[in-house]
């Protein structure tokens, strides 16, 4: 598929607030990025007209009940069937921050046996309250997540987090077994690391929310549904990176670009 023919759907809902940055990142890469309100998508039921589905960050429905819960249930009862078909075609579905919460609440992540009717894991309230800070996440995937094949293995991406509920946890009686499963099925793709690249091991602020095993992002077993808490769209351009003023002038691009470039390259090659 030619790059300029790729249609990326960025859905937004009341309270979404990272949509424009994400659109701008995709458009900079030469794809067609469509920012569409979820109500319109619910009405037109045309998800399958798009090649990539992105749930951007924000605070959909004011984080009422739980972050992402209302939007997720709305997706379920309005276009659950279409979304299931979209995922089954292998097309990329990406959830950033609030989008990750939506994918967990819809049951698509971790999706050990396909979509689960109830969430299998949770993004709970943070250990240190609302966190808005720069963190580093390391790509530890081994290739199952096709969307991330363009991000070199072990690469550390510096970008901000901004959330009150992002502490990745699994059921207490299953946590160890499921962690092993995440590794075995190559679903664990991003972990929080320190400045030297070593894992944060739960230390704050490198692990900003107290996430189990420093987990920042996971994908489904098939590798086409991906969710993570940090915001690469807020680190797409060089002038968005911290401390560039010390260098005199910013680089053209920042750490986040490699992620978006990887998504686009994957779709170009796969479809």
């Amino acid at each position, binding site marked *: 598929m030619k790059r300029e023919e790729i249609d990326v759907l960025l859905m937004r809902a009341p309270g979404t607030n990272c949509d424009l940055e994400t659109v701008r990142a995709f458009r900079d890469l030469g794809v067609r990025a469509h920012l569409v309100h979820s109500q319109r998508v619910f009405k037109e039921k045309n998800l399958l007209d798009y090649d990539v589905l992105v749930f951007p960050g924000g605070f959909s429905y004011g984080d009422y*009940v*739980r972050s992402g*819960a209302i939007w997720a*249930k709305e997706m379920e009862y309005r276009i659950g069937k279409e979304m299931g078909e979209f995922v089954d075609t292998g097309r990329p579905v990406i959830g950033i921050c609030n989008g990750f919460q939506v994918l967990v*609440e819809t049951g698509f992540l971790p999706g050990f046996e396909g979509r689960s009717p*109830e*969430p*299998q*894991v*949770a993004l*709970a*309230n*943070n*250990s*240190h*309250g609302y966190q808005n800070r720069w963190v580093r996440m390391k790509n530890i995937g081994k290739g199952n997540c096709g969307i991330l094949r363009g991000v070199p293995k072990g690469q550390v991406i510096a970008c901000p987090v901004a959330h009150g509920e992002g502490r990745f*946890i*699994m*059921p*207490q009686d299953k946590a160890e077994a499921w962690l092993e499963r995440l590794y075995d099925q190559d679903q664990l793709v991003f972990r929080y690391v320190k400045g030297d690249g070593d894992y944060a091991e739960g230390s704050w602020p490198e692990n900003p929310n*107290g996430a189990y095993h420093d987990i920042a992002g996971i994908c489904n077993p098939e590798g086409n549904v991906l969710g993570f808490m940090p915001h690469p769209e807020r680190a797409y351009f060089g002038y968005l990176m911290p401390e560039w003023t010390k260098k005199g002038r910013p680089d053209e691009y920042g750490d986040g670009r490699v992620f978006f470039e990887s998504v686009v390259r994957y779709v170009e090659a796969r479809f």
Partner: protein
Amino acid sequence: MKYNAKVYVSLKKGYSDPEGETAANALRGLGYTVDDVRASKAYEVSFQAEDRETAEAVLDEMCRRLLTNPTKDDYSFEIREV
């Protein structure tokens, strides 16, 4: 029949509850002897059901499908006919 229910949702024991811990520290600062505080959320749900048994079953489903994430939340409810 019309029913009115109060639903309480809280983090399961064993998960750290930063909001509860912060409140406990503040209460201690105010001079109270506090062993523990767990934060919880309450909903009041008014709805109709054929009988009490059905009402409890439906409410339980509402809790599992939306009001809680079973991974992290415990819940309880009090239900009364109105």
